[in-house]
């Protein structure tokens, strides 16, 4: 569900916001993680993208964070916003209190301040899960494309919408304990390729990839992933379905 209820803008004076940011620079051996408070004046329609850029241009030129599309599409700017994983670019300050806290996503390698290395982890996971269409047939570029039912194409896109932002991993209980857990992002990829008839792999092949405690059997069904996914992917049903299929295979 996309929240449509907004806090009412306060009439008259704009709010003063206190933004506490967890700062740390691993490149500097003397740097210790600490919360630092920045005060800014709220503007109409202000997002955390606008607020953080304002802090960087007026108060702390060294502040590190990651934004790319600033439109909720690319998944770069996931961070903990008042403790909850979310996309900073499309979070409006008017939906938050006067005092807020920003911290980098846990689990991923810290680059500095609010910037974490999700890209490295995502590439590693894709390699591990061989997350691409497996099909050895040569593509005839001059011929009509293979047909697909419209409903199936839409169902694949539903799972293909993942933006690899890392929120599901940050919201995952298992990932906090099990460093190699593939998480909802990984399991969703398997579900996506499993659904796709262009991928010739069988369930036995997928079992080899995720049939253990670092894969589908590691999930404790806490489903923090489902709650925090900014694309509202159907992670709960996909993980449950995949577990049933893989468990049946394990028992057969």
């Amino acid at each position: 569900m996309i929240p449509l209820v907004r806090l009412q803008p306060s009439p008259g004076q704009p709010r003063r916001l206190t933004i506490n940011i967890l700062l740390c620079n691993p490149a500097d051996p003397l740097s210790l993680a600490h919360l630092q408070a920045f005060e800014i004046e709220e503007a109409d329609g202000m997002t955390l993208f606008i607020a953080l850029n304002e802090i960087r241009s007026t108060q702390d030129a060294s502040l590190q964070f990651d934004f790319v599309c600033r439109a909720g599409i690319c998944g770069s700017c996931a961070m903990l916003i008042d403790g909850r994983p979310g996309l900073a670019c499309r979070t409006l300050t008017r939906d938050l209190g006067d005092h807020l806290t920003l911290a980098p996503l846990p689990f991923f390698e810290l680059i500095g301040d609010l910037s974490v290395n999700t890209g490295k982890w995502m590439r590693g996971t894709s390699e591990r899960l061989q997350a691409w269409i497996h099909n050895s047939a040569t593509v005839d570029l001059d011929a009509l494309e293979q047909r697909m039912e419209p409903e199936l194409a839409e169902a694949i896109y539903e799972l293909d919408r993942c933006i690899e932002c890392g929120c599901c991993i940050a919201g995952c209980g298992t990932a906090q304990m099990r460093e190699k857990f593939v998480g909802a992002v990984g399991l969703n990829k398997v579900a996506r390729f499993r659904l796709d008839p262009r991928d010739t792999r069988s369930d036995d092949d997928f079992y080899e990839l995720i049939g253990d405690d670092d894969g589908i059997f590691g999930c404790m069904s806490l489903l923090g992933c489902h709650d925090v996914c900014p694309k509202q992917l159907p992670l709960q049903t996909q993980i449950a379905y995949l577990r049933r299929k893989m468990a049946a295979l394990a028992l057969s």
Partner: protein
Amino acid sequence: MEVIHSDVLIIGGGLAGLRTALAARKRGNNVIILSLVPPKRSHSAAAQGGMQASLANTSKGAGDNEDVHFEDTVRGSDWGNDQEVARMFVHSAPKAVRELAAWGVPWNRVQAGDHEAIIDGQRVTLSEPAAARGLITARDFGGTKKWRTCYVSDGTGHAMLYAVSDQAIAAGIPVHERMEAVSLIHDGARCYGAIVRNLINGRLLAYVARATCIATGGFGRIYQSTTNAVINEGIGAAIALETGVVPLANMEAVQFHPTAIFPAGILVTEGCRGDGGLLRDVDGYRFMPDYEPEKKELASRDVVSRRMESHIRSGKGASNRFGEHLWLVITLLGEAHINHKLREVKEICQYFLGVDPAEQYIPVRPAQHYTMGGVRTNHTGQTPTLRGLFAAGEAACWDMHGFNRLGGNSVAETVVAGMIVGEAIADFCATPEGDMQVSTALVRASWEKAGAEFAAIADNRGGESASVLLLRMQAIMTTQVGIVRHHENLAAAVDELQQLILRSRQVGLHATRAGANPELTTAWRLQRMLKLALCVAYGALQRTESRGAHFREDFPRRNDAEWLKRTLASWPVADQTLPSLDYEALAVSGMELPPGWRGYGARDAIEHPGTAVRQAEIDDIRAAMTGADRHAVQQALMPFRHLLPPHLRGPNARLRDSA
């Protein structure tokens, strides 16, 4: 000094870079991709509405083929493009979309039977033949005669980028993330790779390669109001410019997209209008049919954006606390359509505007969107002046878009260019020319020079602020080098931008930080972005005509007699504050489609003396070949297939092969 070797170095991990890398890798080359960000976060992901390819699977696409797509593209370009390149593109686009289908892109498919659609504000029933069931469907887009835009809901770029990026992972192509190329290693005649800055630790590395390809996208961030991602700063084009020997072409050709949400500037797709959405003014009046009776909301982007701005100027803009805007209305499409086919639009409206587009109007105003200009290359993506240097995608100007690009043609260009340029790179590497003798002294000197530039900025105690100068440059570009241009504004912009170049050399940093200091990064990039801004502004000042997206209020007519030529901007001396401009003529005598009226927009172009001659020749050829196969006629008018790699020359199959 750490040196990393490869056969091929691709700078940029978006669709163009990835697809180029795959083609070069497939031919056995060792390829490394550099990317500012993880490749799946590239701006390619923001392409929403779709990719043009003349598959002709749907009832509204019936009769479509390469010829129709070609004519749309040339008219869209306002005759500013290279027609051979446009031909190569339209011929390869169906192959690209079919390859992507095999790679897993979940293209929306044809549902056989009746379905409802909105056309020109009316609900109509269309019927799709059973024979087309399950083939790739298409939607309408601006400036096209047929429904040709293949799509995946409104997340087309995302789906394409993920599929192609996954193929690169499957092929084992390493992507060195958070790396920025800061200069090219070259001796004035040949390129040997790039000096690269690690954006995590700030260290400089030397990447030495036999072939180097710039695929860094556009440079929309020189504008204040832009749909572009924050990484689209054009540094790839800038380092090519800084070689002094590689020109950037048609930099004044900058596209403004009609529907960016106001004021955030975030894109909502042209698919909104393609699927039946309308533009309305302060009175709720649908104004586009008054200006453009033929194509209405679906004229080309340059025309629609210009009409919108002039409608606002005539006092008909709606307004909110941020300023004036117009309304995009998609309520008539219905909630089900929006939930399935325009879901990113719905999310964007809800998150950034608090608006439900199924119920409410969307505030929009044109914003910078695309740069037709870029690194000048030939039809295979090779720069004619620096051997071993290639460019592809939005960063390049092989010149398929001329002065205005059609919606759906750029995301298509990324993959088509990748298929063609990647092959050319592999060809280059397979010849003796692809071998190189590189001097380690040259590599070291390049590395030291780049290091000295960063040190000079880091040590400068000047009083200027990089972020202040950056904002000023962006404001100048949006207000004075925008949709409507005039000598006075352009001259003032050029003057002030030159001053900003001088001031940018006096930037002092506020912060020091171990690792890659973001303020140092900004200050370094600012100097390059200012050069690009000057190429745009100075090119626009000198071009005393209106063509495509370049509109001069004081020279409102397209002037083929004097301006049927491509601008080349170069920067031979580092200290100069203006680019050197040169021009290359577009030869009317070789055109398959000589200049004429676009089918929308103004009709008052000043004719080139060669146009009538060429048109007569074409008429004679067509008359002599009456009844001949369309491919044979095309071949007689302007042969192009020999320019394509052999595996891309075959005819494209269509359901109705009469097409």
